[in-house]
């Protein structure tokens, strides 16, 4: 019973990691870059939703739409201004730029909303059926898990069935060849960022509904954990990000419950190191030998 409750709380925080990790993995898989600013887009999503509900008094679902819209635009603008000019530069330059963007967003948020934490009122507050509430399942947890599965399935369908999704995979496999085949690489990558950032907004709202403290650094730790989850599951793989996120959440909850609350984070990263030693490409990642 207790074990089941710990498992459930692990799955629900893991689902939030998974949604964030899906954003990381999309961008990495297609643009071949690590967007470290992803965690901070989550934070922006949380703030936008907070402002729409608290200051404008609009209903919760409107604030989600707002947050998604703002974050999508933000993602496309960041890509256009910061990353696109570096398309031909080395990947280290892009990586450092991403870290810079991350700090820019954090400090901008501190300027706009101040450093004092705000308390985010959960947007999900329906009552769950009796048998679920006995297991401490809250409405937020339910919505998070369902949203995560829907997003994962939706993205898998999108990348394998739609024209744009196929274009994305083509860019991922060989950018030059894709361009020769008439695919607009820049637009495809922009679209990837738009989707990734929209996911970040949803993750932001769910994260803040689950854990209500909203401050400029809210996205940092979940961002790093989700990145870990993406690598854990095999970066670039959509089901991998999902699996990695959920497993990471469970490992964290179990470590916290049965081993040590202080060491929980260390245990999470230790597991990552062990998995990478055994399977360098992650759980579901494809290991492609490089020709030298």
């Amino acid at each position, binding site marked *: 019973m207790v074990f089941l409750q710990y498992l459930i709380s692990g799955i629900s925080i893991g689902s939030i990691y998974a949604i964030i990790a899906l954003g990381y993995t999309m961008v990495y898989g297609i643009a071949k870059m*690590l967007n470290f600013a992803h965690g901070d887009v989550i934070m922006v999503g949380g703030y936008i939703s907070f402002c729409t509900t608290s200051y404008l008094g609009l209903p919760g679902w409107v604030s989600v739409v707002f947050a998604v819209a703002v974050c999508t635009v933000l993602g496309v603008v960041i890509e256009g201004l910061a990353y696109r000019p570096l398309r031909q530069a080395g990947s280290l330059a892009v990586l450092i730029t991403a*870290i810079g963007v991350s700090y820019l967003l954090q400090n901008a948020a501190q300027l706009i909303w101040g450093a004092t934490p705000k308390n985010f009122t*959960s947007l999900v507050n329906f009552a769950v059926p009796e048998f679920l509430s006995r297991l*401490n399942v*809250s409405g937020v947890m339910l919505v998070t898990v369902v949203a995560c599965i829907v997003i994962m399935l939706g993205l898998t369908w999108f990348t394998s069935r739609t024209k744009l999704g196929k274009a994305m995979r083509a860019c991922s496999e060989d950018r030059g060849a894709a361009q020769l085949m008439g695919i607009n690489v820049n637009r495809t990558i922009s679209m990837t960022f738009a989707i990734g950032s929209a996911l970040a907004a949803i993750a932001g709202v769910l994260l803040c509904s689950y854990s209500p*403290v909203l401050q400029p650094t809210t996205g940092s730790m979940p961002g790093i954990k989700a990145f870990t989850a993406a690598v854990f599951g095999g970066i670039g793989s959509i089901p991998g990000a999902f699996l990695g996120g959920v497993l990471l959440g469970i490992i964290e909850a179990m470590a916290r*419950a049965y081993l040590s*609350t202080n060491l929980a984070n260390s245990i999470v990263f230790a597991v990552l190191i062990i998995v990478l030693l055994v399977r360098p490409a992650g759980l579901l990642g494809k290991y492609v030998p*490089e020709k030298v």
Partner: protein
Amino acid sequence: MKKKNFAALFLAGAMCFGFLAGCGGDTGSASDPVDSSQEVSDGGSQASGSGTAGGTFQIGFIGPLTGNNASYGTSALQGAQIAVNEINALGGDIQFEISFQDDVSDAETAVNAYNTLMDGGMQMLIGPVTTGPAISVAAETYADRVFAVTPSASSLDVIDGKDNYFQICFTDPNQGISAATYLSETLPDATVAVIYNNGDSYSTGIYEAFAEEYTALGGEIVYTGTFTEDSQTDFSVQLTGAQNAGADLIFAPIYYTPASVILTQGDAMGYDFTLFGCDGMDGILGVEGFDTSLAEGMLLLTPFSADLEENATFVDAYQEAYGSIPTQFAADGYDCVYTLYTALQQAGCTSDMTAEEICDAVIPVMTQIQVDGMTGVLSWAATGEVTKDFDVYVVENGAYVVA
């Protein structure tokens, strides 16, 4: 080759991130004091700006004015300002001028803030407000012989071995023992769990004294959950543990930000418990966006209540100036200024004395004086520990009521 490149990149990225994260905190906080470093000169004061003329003493204030613990520093500073206004309006021999610096509750920033204030000619210090910074700055004041009082840094380490540093608030062990006594006397039937931050000296100090005293009084702690700064955004595991241990009261000697998470997540889980906090919990009702109905029935051990008749003058003045009800930290800040005032009067100090001369003159009188302040009647031991009464309050309809 590419795989290796990627691994190297990842490591480099992770390292940069670590470095930047380290620096980020520092630069952010270092620039803050510059922004907020301004002199709060009192409107009613007839004294000129110069520190050594006209009986005006230069008081420094250090506390978190931004960041996680901003509410504590801001409240304490505003409370102190009210007291300074009152004293200056009396037009007596002793006038105060207060300058403040933000330490973002960070020890290193606090020492920089202290040095800035010293360069500005500070004669006595109020602060730092939180324990970590206070331990660092207290050592500096001891070395420089600057007399200091802290409104709320409650660890014994702050005053340990320093004859020049006095506390306005209870020490941590004192709070833990008081809470344990209250629980075993007033709520003997409660099944008690504890959640505390074991990466924080304030929280750990209260917990240790509480656990020892409560067990000695025959009580049993059915569950103990810990957390650290890194993990203070998710308490589902600790709450599940406490719930399954059958606890109906959670003693949480922690600050209000994580406490608001505990209340929100407990509510989402459908877990019904009473939260019992110490002075760090004060301020929770003022968090922006916080649903105060979640805090209904919460117990709080604190020496100040804005609802008491005898505190009305201060509460009114504070409300008029800042538009909110003063917290216990504001009352502590207020009492700091009156403590300095009483001590200076008793020791017969004049404002042309150096910080060192004032320090030597004031220390011996501290054990003799009594200050009838907002947080009770205060008197001190030579160690710097304060003696005063405490009360337990319960939150009813979004306000504190004596329990």
